[in-house]
Every structure is written in C-alpha cells, then in structure tokens.
C-alpha cells in the first residue's frame, strides 16, 4: 500500500447542446432577461491599436456550416498585455479582452469587432506572434475546442512563433492563419474553422 493522492478529479465536460444561447446569449435565443449580456464588447472605446473585425464560419465534417455554435475569444491588448492580474502591465479602461459570439441561425456566419492584439511573451523568453485564442462549443462537441487565430500579415512573427512551431506538420499551421482584407474601409480577417476532414483546423489541448 502507498499513501493516497488526495486530488479531486475535474468535473467532466458535457456538450453545450443546441440551446446554449438561452444561458449565454439569451438575446439571440429570442428573449431579453439580463440588463447586461456579457461578452459583447471586447476592446472597449479606449483601446489603442488597429480596429479589426474577425469573422468566419465553423464547418462540420460534411462541409456544412454549423448554425448553433458559440465561440469565446481571449486576447491581449495592442501592447500584448492581458486584462488579468497575473500579467504584468496595464490595459486600457474598459478593455476586457474577452468576447462571446454566436453563429447566425440561418447562415452560420459569426464575427466580432476588436483591436489587433500585440505580441505576448511566451515561455522561456520566446515571443509569441499576435494571436487570439478561441474556444468553440456546440451541440455534438463534447469538450470545448481550443484553437488560435493568427494573422496573415504577420508572416515573420508567425514563422518564429513557438506554438505554431510545435505543430510538426507545416501544412497544418496554415489552418490557424486568418486572412486580411478590407471591406468598406474596415479591416476584416477571415477565419473559417473546419472541425473535421480536409484542412481540418488545428485544435489544442491547453
């Protein structure tokens, strides 16, 4: 016999189901209940840096866009600082870095407005290329999927990014690069997420 390790086990995950909007985005479910729905404003009015929109669809293994997804986003400000007490540095008043978006029930399109994050220092003094962390939940997804959106106009930083370089299959790294364009004077990054099949997006166990 040995001593017992007295660790608790993490509560197991379950799918968010088809009606995740009721709890987390009730306005989208068709009713207003909260004075303040959370996650609608990621950067706030005072944030420095380039205003951008990130948008896309989430595609299933049959090639169809998924119309009941919820995504959450987490990012640093334009100086590469997270709005969190353990991260050194200050963020602008009103900058949360966190957002919550849902897909359109008819088209599956999602999108959010924010500022482009700055580079964040990674492990062992290695600088990470600018990126936004995404978390994807939906019916049929048993445990929320983590991924990262990088930016195609940061090719040099991306080439040196310690996380992208952990991905041994170089062709798969391209699934994490959002594509920049301009539409009506607005900077838009397209980031389609493929859950399964050809060009499947890289998902991380964080």
């Amino acid at each position, binding site marked *: 016999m040995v001593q017992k390790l007295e*660790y*608790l*086990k*993490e*509560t*197991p*995950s*379950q*799918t*968010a*189901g*088809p*009606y*995740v909007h*009721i*709890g*987390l985005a009730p306005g989208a*479910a068709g*009713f207003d209940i*909260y004075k*303040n729905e*959370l996650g609608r404003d990621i950067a706030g009015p005072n944030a420095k840096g380039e205003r951008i929109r990130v948008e896309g669809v989430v595609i*299933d*293994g049959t090639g169809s866009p998924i119309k009941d997804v919820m995504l*959450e986003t*987490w990012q*640093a400000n334009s100086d590469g600082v*997270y*709005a*969190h*007490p*353990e*991260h050194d540095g200050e963020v602008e008043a009103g900058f949360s870095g*966190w957002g919550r978006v849902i897909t359109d029930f008819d088209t599956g399109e999602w999108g959010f407005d924010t500022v482009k994050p700055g580079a*964040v*220092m*990674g*492990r*062992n*003094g290695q600088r*990470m290329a600018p990126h936004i*962390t995404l978390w994807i*939940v*939906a019916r*049929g*997804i*048993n445990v*929320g*999927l983590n991924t990262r959106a990088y930016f195609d106009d940061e090719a040099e930083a991306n080439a040196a990014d*310690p996380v992208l370089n*952990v991905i041994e299959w170089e062709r798969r790294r391209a699934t994490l690069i959002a594509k920049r364009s301009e539409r009506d004077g607005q900077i838009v990054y397209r980031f389609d997420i493929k*859950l*399964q*099949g050809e060009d499947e*997006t*890289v*998902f*991380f*166990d*964080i």
Partner: protein
Amino acid sequence: MTKPGEFYQRDRNWHPPAVTPTYKTSVARSPQYSMISLEQSASEITGPKFGHSDIDPMDRDMIHNYAASGESAIGERIIVHGRVLDENGRPVPNTLVEAWQANAGGRYRHKKDTYLAPIDPNFGGCGRTLTDENGYYFFRTVKPGAYPWRNWVNDWRPAHIHLSIFGTSFSQRLITQCYFEGDPLIAKCPIVNTIPDQAARGQLIAALDMNATIPLDTIAYKFDIVLRGRRSTLFENRMEGN
C-alpha cells in the same frame, strides 16, 4: 511573491472523447486529428474577470427573474447549491457560474425548440451568479423536465441544468450538465454515456440535500464543481524563466 505555475494536465480519459457515435451529432463535429498539446503560456493561464457590477443579484433566482410581478415559475421549487473547487480542493472564489435549462415540462424558451410541451410565461430558464470568497454558489429554480430529442427515435434527456464555469484562466473554462439523484433516464442517456468512466458520470449527479432544503418551501440539491488544479511554484516553474 512568486506566481503560481501552470494548470495540471487535463485527464482526457476522464472527459468524454470527441467522437462518440451513439451521440450522433458528435460524428461529423469531432476532429479526426489528435489535439496538439501545449505547454502553457500567458495566453492559457489568464482569463476574463467578472465582478458584481456585471450581474444583478436577482440573476440567480430563475423562479422570479423572468416572472411577471407577483408571479413565479411553475414546477418543483429547488435550490441548486455547492462549491467551485480546484483539484487541490481549494475554493475558486469570485468566479462566474452561468446556468440554463428547460422548464418543468422540458420545454426551452428558444425559438428553435418546437417540443409540444408549453412555454411557461413566467420562466426564462437562465441564471448566473458569482461564487463567494469560499467558492460557494447557489441558484433557485424549478426542476427541469425530461424532454425528447432526435438522436435514436425514442431518446429522452434526463432532467438537467447546463452549467458554464470560468475559473481563473482560459484553460479552466468548462461547460457541463448537472443531473439529479435517482433519475432513471441518466443511465440511458447517450450524452451522459459519452463519459467512459462510471465514477466520472457520478460526478455530474447532484445529491438531494435535505440539510439545505427549506421546510415547506424549497427542496435542495448539492452540486460541487471541480476545475483544474494548479502547480505551486516549487523548483520548476519554467513558464518564463529557463
């Protein structure tokens, strides 16, 4: 003060795998490649913070938070309460817990739900609260009803409340479902059974808690939530150093 280290590796054998064919929707929505495991950086050990200004104290009372003045939701009045802890048994204070559920008849207030059981005009079905300094939380609600769903033709979800918990970092982010002690549908549910380990399934079943029941008023169930634990900084917290 030195900062604590990274979070313990998630036990992916304790959680459901991505592809679970008896839960049919998972088949086309599950990645085929393995996840890439990361050593954690600032992007993973940080996460959003919420405060009392973000929510209203009434948000945790689903019997009344959507009811007309003087009215209340129809159904079995219950309290769901418990603590949010980490794997080290330490409380997770001031963390956001969000809940959503069907009404007593198993009908969701959602434009996509077409089940013939009626909407309760005084029930919205969502609530949220912050844990206190001891990691404690509670909701008041009505016990949700079972409902049918299109999986196999005669599948019924056990009564359940969906819960979303943040913790202190994005790596602790969790959505799960709380079931109720004694429900015979639990053992038959393809979603419950995505979890391979019987003990892990049991961790999702709230216990009837007569000690917390309010006599002549409201029955109580206890549901503790455990988030990933975190390394202390001993000799090898290499997140930033070398």
